[in-house]
């Protein structure tokens, strides 16, 4: 686990702290967002994810800590090159979508002509080219979400900070969004996104940061997090598996008839279990149980 490498991470968050009155919403949060990787930001409601992202974007002042870009405190000009999708989505209700996307890009310093070309290209890609002149209120929620992500992608960002980019998307849209993010990570861009959907995060992310009550409780690559969890094996025998309770070097997490879930306390003990099982009769299944992210999450946040 640990704090992870700071090498290869253009964007790094160091000791960010924010209080609202007496409540510390974000308490010395530090983690890197490695270049070319998808970093998933996980935590329950009120864990401090949105507050952290807002501080990274400079929308909210940090009371302590800093955001580093290439090793030094990030500047306003560098922030403008980060694509941002806030938790609370919003666009002008009464302006053509293409026009406001061009406007938002021009606020981020892009030449309006170039911005229009880039916007039209992305609208085309998301199948929204014919809707370019429509007002936002006429679009479906899914399409509004697409417009919102386009806003983060024009101009070509140096990093992406996305607050709940998958919320409200159907499975197909989730896949195309994931593909889009991958496209940016393959350019070498660091991507940080928050989500409630743990299985999705598990499937997509190169790295995870888990927050609870304003603090980072654990972080690392998916493999690192799993390695940190308990080593478990599942055994399914032909007869009752209750005998495993008496064996040394293991902890029996669960026995249910012919199935037993074992936690290895002393390394190598699982081999002795298998020998015993074979001696006692047919073994139908014996496999290493890789902990699911939700289990790691529950353990980390409990």
């Amino acid at each position, binding site marked *: 686990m640990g704090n992870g490498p700071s090498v290869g991470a253009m964007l790094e968050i160091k000791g960010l702290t924010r209080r609202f009155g007496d409540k510390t919403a974000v308490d010395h949060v530090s983690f890197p967002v490695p270049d070319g990787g998808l970093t998933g930001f996980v935590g329950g409601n009120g864990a401090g994810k949105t507050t952290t992202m807002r501080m990274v974007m400079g929308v909210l002042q940090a009371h302590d800590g800093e955001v580093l870009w290439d090793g030094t405190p990030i500047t306003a000009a560098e*922030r403008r090159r980060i694509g941002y999708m806030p938790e609370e989505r919003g666009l002008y209700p009464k302006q053509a979508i293409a026009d406001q996307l061009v406007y938002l890009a021009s606020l981020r*310093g892009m030449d309006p002509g170039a911005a229009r070309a880039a916007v039209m290209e992305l609208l085309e890609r998301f199948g929204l080219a014919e809707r370019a002149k429509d007002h936002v209120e006429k679009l479906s929620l899914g399409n509004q979400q697409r417009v919102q992500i386009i806003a983060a992608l024009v101009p070509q960002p140096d990093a992406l900070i996305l607050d709940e980019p998958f919320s409200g998307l159907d499975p197909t849209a989730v896949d195309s969004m994931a593909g889009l993010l991958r496209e940016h990570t393959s350019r070498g861009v660091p991507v940080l996104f928050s989500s409630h959907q743990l299985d999705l995060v598990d499937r997509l992310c190169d790295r995870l940061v888990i927050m609870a009550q304003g603090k980072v409780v654990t972080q690392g690559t998916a493999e690192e997090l799993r390695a940190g969890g308990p080593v478990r094996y599942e055994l399914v025998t032909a007869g009752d598996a209750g005998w495993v309770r008496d064996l040394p070097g293991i902890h029996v997490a669960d026995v249910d008839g012919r199935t037993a879930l074992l936690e290895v306390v002393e390394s190598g003990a699982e081999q002795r279990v298998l020998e015993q099982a074979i001696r006692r009769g047919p073994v139908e299944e014996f496999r290493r149980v890789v902990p699911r992210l939700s289990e790691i999450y529950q353990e980390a946040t409990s």
Partner: protein
Amino acid sequence: MSTRTDQTSQAEATTRHTPTTGRGTEAQQPRTATRGAWLQVARREVLVKLTDKGFLISTVVTVLLIGAVLAIQGFMQNRTSTFDVVTTDSTAAAMVDRIADRAPDIDDKVAVKAGTESDAAAARAAVQDEKVDAWLQRTDSGWTLVTKDTADSDLSTVVSTVVRETALADNATKAGTTMAALQAGTTVTAQQLDGNAERSGLVTALGFIFAILFYLASIMFGMTLASSVVEEKQSRIVEMIAAAIPLRQLLAGKIIGNTVLAFGQMALYVGVGLVGMSFTDYGKYVAGLSGSIGWFLAFFLVGFVALACLWAVAGALASRTEDIQSTSMPITMLMMLMYFGALFLDGTARAIGSFIPPVSSILMPMRVLAGEVSWWEPALALLLLVAFAVGLILVSERIYRRALLQTGGKLSVKDAWRTQE
């Protein structure tokens, strides 16, 4: 997080932005500095308004209205009214003939056409049926002008002047003297030190028009500004804007955009008004007014900017469009105060008021127009107004910045001031 000035960050951005692998060429694209972002914001404010049909229609209608009012004014001034006046006997007929002769000399907009009726009943009937305008009749003590309704004032002036002249001349002859002898030493000539009577009336009218224009423009564009602020807040787009540019730039852009619109509209109205006026009898004063109008526009500009900051704050304190009514209440009150102050202050109070911002933005141009002031007075008042505007901008900016990202309901100024960014 460290706080640094924009300048240092810009400098750093250019010196150390060396993209690493995979960042592609787009990272090296030159990007305009954050400092110019207000221009984009202002541009949008103007464009959105200029493509708003309601705004365009109301502007065109107003221009047409100004043109129409001035055209009617010019028409009325130049129109000659002809009155048919009948008589029933030769004495009266002779008098009407004299009136018809003299009418153009007394009032060049009045012409009298003489006619006869057989008797009193016929004459009365003709007046009653509006076939003629009046019936002039000799009575024992003098003359009677019979009309259906109230006699036209121009006509009665002409008639009574001629009748009096004629009667006086007759009486003078009877008394053995002449008209000239009788009238010697009776003339009173009015002499006005500042300008003349006609100009004074014009100046008063223009002063009120200025006050109304300022009031209307401030309310209209102030409301526009406040609702465009709350629109960004309510639609939540403000967070994306805040991530891209400093909120100070957003505020500046909005104020500048709306000021350009308000000022442009005002200049258009004033321009149309002046051009129109030059076609009326008041045309001779247009050149003399241009100095005063210059001051009016200068005061309008600064006064509008000062109030615009307050409108922006009213928008930022609201969290839904419906809240603007209540958050903008203090400004509407202030505007009423300014407006009525301009109309009702008199004497010393008016002189003092014309230096006190923001009332000065209406009162001083009115006094300049009336020719009550020396050159340094509007200059000083403008300076005070500028100082006031700068102070207001600083205070407003802080409240605006703090209130803008608070989306949980309506805020009070106090809360917004204390909120942490």
